[in-house]
């Protein structure tokens, strides 16, 4: 097994797709993934939202078990396919105001001759500041100068129900 790692990480992978769902299941035999209840919108009661006082509270934490799934793929760089490839990935939840609410940093690793990598993060709840459009931003660490480069964005709309 080759243990060659590349430093030009961002050039070697891309995010093909990403979704939010309530549950997922991976078929180890066929390496397929099943997604259940894909989430594009959360409905919040006005009663809960009204508890948040702007400037005093940072938001309200609501129970909402959900998973974020992102599928990464190696790009076709000659000589890379047979090597181990690793990359630092950051998932940032950005609120309607543009504030970064939470961040999760981790390292993904492609084994030799494996072209795709499914990344799954489970969340127990969701922090809501207000209604509006939230984004889960998927970014990859490029280098010390450039920092993280955005690869993919998963939108999530939060609406008021009453």
């Amino acid at each position, binding site marked *: 097994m080759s243990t060659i790692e590349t*430093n030009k990480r961002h050039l070697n992978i891309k995010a093909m797709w990403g979704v939010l769902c309530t549950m997922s299941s991976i078929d180890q035999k066929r390496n397929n993934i099943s997604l259940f209840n894909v989430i594009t919108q959360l409905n919040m009661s006005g009663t809960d939202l009204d508890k948040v006082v702007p400037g005093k*509270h940072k938001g309200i934490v*609501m129970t909402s078990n959900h998973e974020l799934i992102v599928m990464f793929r190696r790009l076709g760089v000659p000589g890379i396919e047979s090597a181990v490839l*690793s990359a630092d990935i950051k998932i940032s939840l950005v609120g309607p105001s543009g504030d*970064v609410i*939470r961040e*999760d*940093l981790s390292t993904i690793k492609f084994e030799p001759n494996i072209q795709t990598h499914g990344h799954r993060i489970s969340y127990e709840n969701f922090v809501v500041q207000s209604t509006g459009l939230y984004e889960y931003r998927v970014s990859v660490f490029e280098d*010390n100068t450039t920092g*993280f480069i955005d690869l993919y964005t998963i939108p999530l709309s939060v609406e008021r129900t009453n």
Partner: protein
Amino acid sequence: MLKVTYDTEVDAKYVSVKDGKIKETKIINDWLFFDCDDKGDVIGIEILDASKNHVTVSAFDGDLVNVNFVENASGGASYNKDFGEQKGKYLRSNKAAVLA
């Protein structure tokens, strides 16, 4: 905001959690070090042999709330540590709570 710097020559990675002055460095093991400020908050994480030792870091509202690390990536020891008692508690809460 979590930032990463990587020294490829010595294979060392530094995860910056937030701005601050280092008051103390806590040695977690022979490849993992936490830089803390005068309040005891972790402001940075240094990882040696970074290509082998992988760390998962979660931050909420600018503060570190969880670190999970795996030694030698494909196996080896695994650890989990929670930080930021109040914020971490809120994030693991199964009840609705207003976060001050």
